[in-house]
């Protein structure tokens, strides 16, 4: 069964005071279409990399949105930039640009 990222999560707490959304805001500036994402998961469902591993692009960009940047950089390297997700996204999110910009931002030191 492919993991579409819809599985029930265990309860958890997040300390919002500690979350830095600086990178997320920068990402929105660079890829404004990301604002439109409504988390449907179509991108993950079609993803070429997802067919092999538990790489889940929706999870990745949702984590980024929440300011959880740990491990994302390595995870994003699994993407082959094939563009299926971009073509399928019902909200017209430019996912390939999103992925490249996430990688770029994760590379940069936190301001």
């Amino acid at each position, binding site marked *: 069964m492919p993991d579409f990222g819809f599985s029930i999560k265990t309860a958890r707490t997040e300390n919002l005071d500690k979350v830095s959304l600086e990178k997320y805001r920068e990402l929105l500036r660079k890829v404004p279409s990301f604002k439109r994402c409504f988390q449907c998961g179509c991108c993950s469902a079609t993803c070429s990399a997802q067919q092999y591993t538990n790489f889940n692009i929706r999870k990745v960009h949702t984590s980024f949105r929440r300011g959880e940047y740990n491990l994302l950089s390595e995870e994003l*390297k699994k993407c*082959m930039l*094939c*563009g299926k997700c971009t073509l399928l996204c019902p909200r017209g999110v430019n996912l*390939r640009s999103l992925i490249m910009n996430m990688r770029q931002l994760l590379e940069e030191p936190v301001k």
Partner: protein
Amino acid sequence: MKIQVIPYNIFVIPFLVGVALLLVICLYKYIRWIGKFNKQQRDTIKKNWFSWKIFSAVWEMFREGLLHVKIFKKNFLLGVMHQAYALGWFLLIVVGFAESTLTMKYLQQENSVERVYQLENQGDWYVKEKGEGVIDELTLGNEEVSKINYKRPFYVSIFYRYFVHDVPSSFRNAHLFSNVMDGLLLYVFLGLTMAIIKIMYSRILGMRRTTRHTIVDRFSKFALWSIFPLRLLAESVTACLYGNGGFFTQTIGNLFDPMIVRGMEHSLWMFYSVMLSVFFVTLPFTRYMHIFTELFLIYFRKIGVKESNEKSGYTMFELNACSRCGVCIQGCPLDKELGNHKVQSVYLVRSIRNQERPGKIKMIADDCLMCDRCSVDCPVGIDLNAIRRIVRNKGTLDTKGNYSYVHENKYSFNAIGRIAYFGGCMSHLTPGITESMEKIFEAAGQKYWYMDKQRSVCCGRPLQQQGFLNQAAELREKNSDMIEKSGAVMLVTSCPICYRSFKTEYNLSIPVLHHTEYIDMLLKQDKIKVRKDDKKVSYHDPCELGRGCGIYEEPRSVLKRVTNLQKTRYQKDKSVCCGFNLGNTVLTVEQQTKICNASLKNLTSKPVDTVVTACPMCKKAFIRATNEYPVRDIAEVVAENLIN
């Protein structure tokens, strides 16, 4: 006594300084660039620098540097303009040189002291005893002149009419020469007039839009443009005073009053010389650097030097060979459909050459569909997308992918002797194509191995296009490994993006075919039988298949057998990108759709029943954009019309 006779006037100084600076600067630049060639390019040069290819290089230099055949083919009037400048000026120099050489030879033969007196009276010739200083008329008269030796510095031919007012009557060709020179000057004027028209009404010359030039370029252009009118004026005034002009300059000269223009002659020649000098000195820093650089580029390209993934000396030659002619602007869908006039190749090339802000260069390089339209159109043949790739190179971001997962899932399928079929990621979103291909394989009785049926590995081209070169290579390695080990005898792919990658970036030992080629082959070998329906269809040339790999005829030949193929206005290498080319990551879906609509409009300008393409990406793009027309892939059309 042996004497030497030398033409000289102060106005040759600016010209000489200009030429000297031009030479020094160009030499400095060329040597520096050649020094920056990378190892591989250097090896190519070492291996091939002297081979038979030099002949074809020289021929191409003549054809492209002077005749401008490629521009002629694209746009006749523009070709006339460029040719008039290049060929006209070149011939002015060559014929002028011949004229001055021959005349001086006659003067030499005449060997008359009277002639020397006459020249010296003109005030611009110096008579000098061999090895000694200048001698004047009086001393010359006293001694027997045993030998007269005419010196001919190379600038004589540039200012010929000023120095030679009168030629020996035995030199019969004098008149012919002056008429030919006037004709050539007129020819250059034709180009000049067209260039002025182009600035004001570019559409007359078939240009939708012309290049926006920088101040420096405009200044240099002003100098260039003033050279020829000044030459005409100067020669006409001289013709007025001494009657040595041809049909054009003499006619104009006759309009002047000798009393009035006498005082202007020298200044006009001076002006002419200064403008030449200004043009020469600015040349290496403006677009006119293309004049010489293009010749070098042609040579290097002919002997097999190629662009690499990093900026190298060869890149500098490519960048400087761009004449900023603006041909690449005409077809660019971003310019035409989206009104984005900043990112065309001409501006990319210029901004790199002028070392503008890296952010700006990156912005220009990223916002491009990589549709190859400009590369095909560019008359200089600059490898524009290679230059884009160099800028897009991701550097440190592109260390290593995380693709270890691909190997874990390698098939243990035995494909020996079969055809390997690679649908490609995008074909998985258009299953109609892959199902049709399976049908066709079966109808032909061909055993095949559907490589990526359940799980697809990307071919690597999307990464390659975005500058993740190492990661792309990693994927290529995995795919190559899988294909080579499978024992398949041929690779057929349905996606032109993958096709181009397999064809040009991989190094496979088996033949690679796009499905249009494969179907065409089956039809020609009678392995499958089809009926012909009478639906009218138009065919869209996918960028990567057409311009990318030159596959134009196979799909057409297939379609002609199964259906009724219509021509469209922009087709083959002029086809309009569907807008969804993976080369671009900057455009929004709305912008892409706008380009897609333009592409579709071209395909449906004549009444058609179906729009046909050969790329899953284009198919998906068109399907999104239209409800009016059914959109099919060539494989689907053929599969529908199979007769078992």
